[in-house]
């Protein structure tokens, strides 16, 4: 199995007629993902990439019953699109868009919580269950099906990690980018919980970075839950200066919060294998899994 996404998942693309959306929708379909429809207000009734386009999510849901929506909508309209997906009944929403205002996301998250919809992102490459489906913009070719669950706040660094894993013969059950913004949907804790009961997943790799408290929360959860699977983590930004935003809107050390040092300390104390060298991510995961099997 895998989490969140498998070969039966039916994908909706919001903002499908945009350039980026079109490109990545084609890549997803090439990978065998079941993309069933798109939404672009004003283009309802047209076909795009062979897919029916609807004016509203509501209409797309009525006609095509998707269960995951991927959002490629410009930043100032994206939170509304997320809420539209939730109101339409979508239970998993993947928001690729970068640059959504914080306040918009806060409102959208409260809205989603009440409707019981989950969000991945925003500002995420999305997620992939190798060999089953891809709901995102990551290069599919580096992925292999396998036993490692991957949760990451980063994009290309995740590709790097996946590349290292696959080269060592370690495939991935599901690899999820949780997004680089200050306010994102599902974070480490919720996804660790899902990987816990996923039979395919034998170990989890976390890729954290500076800013926020998501890694600290994960550490607390792992400790509290007596997490049964081995977990390794790399946290980017040990050399990051305070108060400077490094690329991601969420990657900023504010006040005394969010330094990589603190995160690494918490995770280590929770029994997580810390990866210090980002070139040895795959190697470390492999060693960790071998040790555990040896026991």
């Amino acid at each position: 199995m895998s989490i969140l996404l498998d070969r039966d998942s039916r994908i909706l693309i919001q903002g499908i007629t945009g350039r980026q959306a079109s490109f990545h929708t084609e890549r997803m379909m090439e990978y065998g993902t079941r993309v069933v429809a798109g939404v672009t207000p004003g283009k309802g009734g047209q076909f795009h990439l062979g897919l029916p386009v609807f004016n509203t999510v509501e209409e797309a849901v009525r006609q095509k019953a998707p269960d995951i929506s991927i959002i490629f909508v410009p930043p100032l309209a994206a939170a509304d699109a997320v809420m539209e997906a939730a109101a339409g009944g979508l239970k998993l929403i993947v928001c690729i868009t970068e640059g959504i205002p914080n306040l918009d996301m806060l409102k959208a998250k409260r809205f989603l919580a009440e409707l019981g919809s989950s969000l991945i992102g925003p500002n995420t490459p999305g997620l992939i269950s190798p060999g089953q489906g891809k709901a995102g913009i990551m290069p599919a070719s580096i992925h292999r099906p396998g036993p490692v669950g991957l949760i990451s706040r980063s994009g290309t660094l995740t590709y790097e990690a996946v590349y290292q894993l696959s080269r060592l013969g370690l495939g991935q059950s599901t690899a999820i980018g949780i997004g680089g913004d200050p306010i994102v949907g599902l974070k480490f804790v919720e996804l660790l919980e899902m990987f816990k009961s996923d039979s395919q997943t034998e170990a989890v790799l976390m890729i954290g970075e500076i800013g926020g408290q998501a890694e600290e929360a994960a550490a607390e959860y792992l400790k509290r839950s007596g997490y049964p699977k081995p977990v390794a983590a790399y946290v980017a930004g040990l050399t990051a200066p305070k108060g400077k935003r490094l690329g991601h809107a969420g990657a900023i050390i504010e006040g005394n919060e969010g330094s990589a040092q603190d995160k690494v300390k918490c995770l280590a104390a929770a029994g997580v294998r810390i990866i210090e060298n980002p070139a040895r991510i795959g190697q470390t995961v492999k060693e960790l899994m071998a040790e555990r099997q040896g026991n």
Partner: protein
Amino acid sequence: MLIYEFQAKALLQELGVVIPAGHLAETVDETRVAAQKLGGQVILKAQILSGGRGKAGGIVAADSAEKAGLAAARLLGKKLITAQSGGRGLVVKKILVEEFVPPGREIYLGLVVDRKNEKLAAIVSQQGGVEIEELSKSCPQAIKKEYFYPEQGLLFFQARNLAYFLDLPEASFKTFLDYLKKLSEFFLLRDMKLLEINPLIIKPDNLLVAADIKMDFDDSGLARQPEISALEDWSELSPEEKKARSFKLNYVKMEGQIGCLVNGAGLAMATMDIIKLFGGQPANFLDIGGGVTEEAVSQAFEILASDRQVKACLVNIFGGIVRCDLVARGLVASARKIDLNKPIVVRLQGTNEAEGRRILGEANLPFYFINDFEQAAQLAVSLSQA
């Protein structure tokens, strides 16, 4: 986006929050005239986009127009290095000349987007003028927070809870509630990240005066906040930062010798980290982003190559959306324009990596191709220390 104190104070004044009388001065003469108008006894406050000015000597008292002029002469053009400014310091170009506010009770008032709770937080403390984060560690009971939803705003009882916590004099109570209401509405209306009044002074006549103010706006909200965007002062940026901004490159200058050019924020941080791990020092953070053009790559590379601190460069690209051949073309274009006398370690992975290496190989320039992340970093470090 941070704005200057004098800009923030103008915004507050529009809301009806009392601020000290003051004038902005850019020369010694203007400072003297301003001080004269304010009665001679004044405070000069260097206008830079960074906290911690006081400790860095950016805030000076003067008890006459004459002395204010002398202080301004020392301050204007000076580089202030604060805890938050980074090593290079910020040059003082403007001074806010303010009336002297006699000492009184000082409190702290802040509004912030709270990532952990995913709400907004209104924060107060009876101890104003101190760093709230340090206080929250040393003396958490001196701080009170109320969390609220952006669509609902700060509730009246929450404002009252904060006011009672501060044990305000009765004559200041209503004004404080009024300030909180207006500030929280402004915060929401303007897509802010942080609004701090620190200290808010309770004058002996119970007037509440916002003595110092910090305002930080959500960069992602600026697209719908033209009035706020217009406050951005590009003159604070270094030429490199300006160039980076105009090409949508995420660039942060640092203190080391190895120039880094990477796609993706996480990989860029990891690249810095691995350099440090092998004993080197990164000269910058540079994420060229996903939608980068050949021209932008070229400009990015020029920024690194023209940095005199830089002894070697490390290009680390994991092609996904970004194609390796595009990056290679950008590098070559740039290397041809400038006098490239620094070693460049290049690692290309992913989309079109072979084509990228071919383009670089044909350029006959001082590139070292290393496929392995770790070896690339090690080589860059040793080259930078040669």
